[in-house]
């Protein structure tokens, strides 16, 4: 008797696990695609570190935007696979790549218009909802993406100088400074976000050193007088 009951109980559990594994498998396949997209966007945007890339940047942003459209359709597929209200059951699968895409979206927008992209704009770029009861963009993933952005910008500041572009470091310095101030408002737990934020200090320091190197050599452009910083990117 109890045998039959037990069998029933376990059979339904087996079905449950089986269907979970199927969902995970589907997710894994889609995430693989998204990772490929992310890798391509990153490769496209790496142009910023090449010498004398100034002209190519806007065309790279354009290419990135096109790739983000593929990303969107992949996130749409993903949102169809993940059951409603179970976003956090499976989000380990796409957490990492989503952070990376937040970084890439933020970098694209920074290159295009020089401003900090909002979480809702990133959600739009990725093609996900901003409503947390649907397939949405997690705040912490967005913030992690911004921290990755700072790291890339620190490298960008260095390479810009190598290319003889002395304005870019000033723009980056201001941008990262504001982000840093923003992050300091957050009450962070002792988690990965906190650790990543602690690393930000070193990037801020690195950027300041670049600005300092420019200023003692009189290479610092009179940046603050340029009121229209955002326009720089769009020109």
């Amino acid at each position, binding site marked *: 008797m109890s045998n039959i009951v037990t069998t029933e*109980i376990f059979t339904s559990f087996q079905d449950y696990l089986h269907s979970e594994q199927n969902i995970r498998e589907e997710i894994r396949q889609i995430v693989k695609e998204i990772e490929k997209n992310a890798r391509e966007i990153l490769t496209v945007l790496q142009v910023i570190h090449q010498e004398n890339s100034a002209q190519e940047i806007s065309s790279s942003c354009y290419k990135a935007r096109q790739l983000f459209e593929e990303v969107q359709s992949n996130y749409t597929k993903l949102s169809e696979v993940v059951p409603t209200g179970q976003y956090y059951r499976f989000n380990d699968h796409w957490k990492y790549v989503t952070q990376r895409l937040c970084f890439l979206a933020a970098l694209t927008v920074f290159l295009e218009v020089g401003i900090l992209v909002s979480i809702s704009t990133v959600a739009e770029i990725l093609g996900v909802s901003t409503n947390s009861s649907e397939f949405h963009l997690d705040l912490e993933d967005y913030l992690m993406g911004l921290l990755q952005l700072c790291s890339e910008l620190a490298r960008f500041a260095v390479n810009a100088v190598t290319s003889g572009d002395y304005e870019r470091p000033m723009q980056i310095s201001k941008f990262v400074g*504001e982000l840093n101030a923003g992050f300091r*408002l957050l009450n962070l737990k002792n988690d990965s976000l906190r650790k990543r934020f602690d690393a930000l200090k070193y990037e801020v320091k690195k950027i300041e050193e670049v600005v300092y190197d420019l200023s003692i050599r009189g290479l610092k452009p009179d940046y603050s007088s340029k009121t229209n910083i955002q326009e720089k990117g769009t020109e």
Partner: protein
Amino acid sequence: KRKELEEHVDENNKVIQMFRQYTLELDAKHDRYERIVKLSRDITIESKRIIFLLHNAATDIDKKKEQIYNEADLRLNQLIEKNFKLLSIELHGQDPYLYLRAYTAGLQEFIEALLYYQFLRYGSIEPWKNLITKFQYSISNSDNHNDDKTNTEVCMTVPPMEFFLGLGDFTGELLRKCINSLGSGNIEECFQICNYVKDIYTGFLRINCSGYKDLGRKVYVLKQSLQKMEYACYTIQVRGSEIPRHMLATVVNTVTNPDVGHEEDEGFY
């Protein structure tokens, strides 16, 4: 409270404005997490106490047994009606999986207690799908101070995985019960429990546990427990071989209940 201190931050800056909003969101999440941890902790402690209470039901006096079962039932229901209701309210409108790590310990311990109660009282346990029907609540929307008396339907999310993790722990209590039974001469119960756990073990064998570390660990412990019970049953059988099996229970009972046994001894020897 902190407002005046932060004047030095440029509140007109767009970035700062964005981060003000983000701070609210993050803080709300952390606070909710902390509250859920506390609720879960209370559930864990009370569940452990109920299990303890149920172990005392190993008495021959049916009336006492019934009393203990009734109290356990009452307290399990209180957990459902009070503690889990509060938990459900916290989780309402949230993705429960975001907070699962905060309440899984309490939930598993409750399931362990519930299953143990069901097994003792009814000789079998209810499946997962019965469990989830217990966790449905109707909450009045009295937050807003007007007379809006509508109710919201709310339910607790119990992923099957937590049910089976609790089921694994439940077999640990069955081991205790089985060995206790043997010590007090309740031989048939010993065989019965052992066979029941054998079924559960075979059930788990059919499951593909790879990738579920917790579950794998539970099954490992379950196998250990089962082998202890099998060895206990083996001992009964081997010893029982020296006198006819049907007389065994009588002898063991005689032995372990000296008060009762004294009178019966006369007839037996």
